């Protein structure tokens, strides 16, 4: 867009972090530790992101050795950022677009309560926008538009941050962890959760949540069931459920039945929040819906990095923080080299594509540079499998094989490749998952 310097202020810094949630906070702290000046742009009125509404416990077991609630986990990183003098935080501020700046830098157009319409001129960017929820419109539930149909995350925010109950007689569609957590939350705060319905033949969330959210509270779980229609004028009065044919994943005609309720919560998938990434021309991976990256978390646009749920929807906040630290440190290094006049193209080696093989639904990074240190490979398998082996190959050469007692799609797998592993890469790499070959020795629980 055209800019008239006198009409909007420009803020200059080394690293712009878009998003002040788990990934953004870690990125900002890591970039500051590397000596960079940092601006964090956060659209909400406070830092912390989605952690602020996740008041249940279970966070931080790997990172802190304790089970914290979401707000407690966030508070630790917020404290680090607030204590760092080189980090400026802009709250109630949104990034509208990111474009090219002068001399290899980036120019972000932002709008916010304090700064009005402004520009941030930076050497590098860390995208940490998190993800958004799939909505009713995207899954085509028929019926009018009565109040009472909302995503599980919206109901969570209303309840846990605003002290408001979305409804009292609740049906939940989707047995992923968010749906299960909200089944317990609504029950514990006084609502009646009638049932949780799940399209697939197996529940999507962790066993621990099935037990502690559904079984503890006597909430029935209906597998291979979906919601086909909603009823009500101004307010929801009932939903129509139907059995689903596992072979086609479509509702079976004749199995429809009505369930009276005043609230339908949808927990039907998370999608990386990639709108700002697209304004910057960053290439998006269809499998993750997030930007495609190399092992340094660099996107296809030099100087733009990404971490957290925007890159790849995670299930452990601990890994989001780890990713944020990595992206923040690399963004700082990029920005400081740029400021010192080192040409960015000088350090880029040859990169090879990482392909998804059998049994793998999504994987990051999507590119590997064999000369560039280590690589943290994170993937989700397509289905539940016991006695599995995850194999990373370059052509016929095995790079790394790991056995797992069990893999499930709802738990992201992490494999850390060393520079010795990467030295064997001289072509495209395939990551696959299949049954582990029989072992002669007693079965062990080999894990990273």
């Amino acid at each position, binding site marked *: 867009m055209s800019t008239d310097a006198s009409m909007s202020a420009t803020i200059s810094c080394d690293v712009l972090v878009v998003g002040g949630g788990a990934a953004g906070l870690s990125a900002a702290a890591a970039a500051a530790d590397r000596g960079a000046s940092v601006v964090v742009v956060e659209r909400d009125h406070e830092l912390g992101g989605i952690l*602020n509404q996740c*008041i*249940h*416990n279970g966070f931080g077991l790997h990172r802190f050795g304790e*089970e914290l*609630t979401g*707000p*407690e986990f966030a*508070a630790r990183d917020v404290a680090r950022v607030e204590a760092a003098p080189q980090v400026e935080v802009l709250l109630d501020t949104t990034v509208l677009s990111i474009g090219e700046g002068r001399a290899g830098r980036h120019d972000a157009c932002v709008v916010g309560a304090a700064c009005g319409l402004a520009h941030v001129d930076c050497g590098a960017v860390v995208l940490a926008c998190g993800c958004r929820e799939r909505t009713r419109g995207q899954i085509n539930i028929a019926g009018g538009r009565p109040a009472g149909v909302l995503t599980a995350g919206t109901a969570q925010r209303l*309840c*846990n*941050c*605003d*002290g*408001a109950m979305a409804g009292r007689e609740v049906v939940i569609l989707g047995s992923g962890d968010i749906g299960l957590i909200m089944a317990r939350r609504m029950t*514990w*705060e*006084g609502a009646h959760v009638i049932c949780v319905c799940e399209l697939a033949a197996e529940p999507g969330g*962790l*066993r*621990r949540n*099935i*037990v*502690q959210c559904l079984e*503890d509270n006597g909430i029935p779980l209906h597998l291979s069931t979906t919601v086909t229609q909603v009823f009500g004028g101004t307010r929801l009065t009932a939903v129509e459920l139907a059995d689903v044919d596992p072979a086609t994943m479509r509702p079976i005609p004749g199995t429809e039945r009505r369930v009276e309720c005043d609230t339908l919560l949808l927990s039907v998938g998370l999608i990386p929040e990639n709108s700002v990434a697209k304004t910057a021309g960053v290439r998006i991976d269809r499998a993750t819906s997030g930007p495609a990256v190399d092992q340094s978390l660099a996107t296809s646009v030099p100087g733009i990095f990404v971490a957290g749920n925007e890159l790849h929807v995670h299930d452990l906040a601990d890994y989001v923080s780890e990713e944020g630290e990595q992206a923040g440190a690399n963004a700082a290094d990029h920005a400081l080299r740029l400021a010192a006049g080192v040409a960015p193209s000088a350090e880029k080696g040859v990169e090879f594509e990482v392909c998804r093989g059998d049994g793998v639904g999504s994987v990051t990074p999507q590119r590997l540079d064999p000369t560039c240190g280590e690589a943290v490979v994170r993937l989700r398998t397509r289905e539940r499998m*016991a006695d599995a082996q995850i194999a990373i190959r370059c052509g016929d050469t095995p790079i790394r094989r790991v056995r797992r*007692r*069990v*893999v*499930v799609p709802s*738990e992201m797998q992490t494999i850390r490749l060393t520079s010795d592993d990467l030295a064997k890469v001289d072509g495209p790499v395939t990551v696959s998952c299949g049954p582990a070959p029989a072992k002669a020795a007693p079965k062990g*629980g080999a894990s990273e």
Partner: protein
Amino acid sequence: MSDAQVLSLTCVQCPMGCLLEVTLADGEVVSVTGNTCPRGRVYGEHEATHPERVVTSLVVVAGDYHPVSVKTAAPVPRELVADVLAAIRATVVRPPVTAGDVVVADVCGTGVNVVATKSHD
């Protein structure tokens, strides 16, 4: 006269979700089967005799519609979860609240405090 009981439980320690069978006599664990690792046995013993849960909830703050999130500082007996939630619901805190502040001391006689998990000015 010993009173034998067999409980079926799903272990939640890892995604295996092993189906455990815990045999009790006079309320004491006699055996755990179905686990494929030692953690499963420990979980089965504990869950069959003294199932416990950490309770997380919200407490009203006087003069504000935004609640403060709270948790029990340690797990409480599962059979008392409803009573603990009722005790929390009956509580109103006065601001300012700092994360870690005790909101309900020794909730329902469990010896466990309910503490704030975020700060509220």
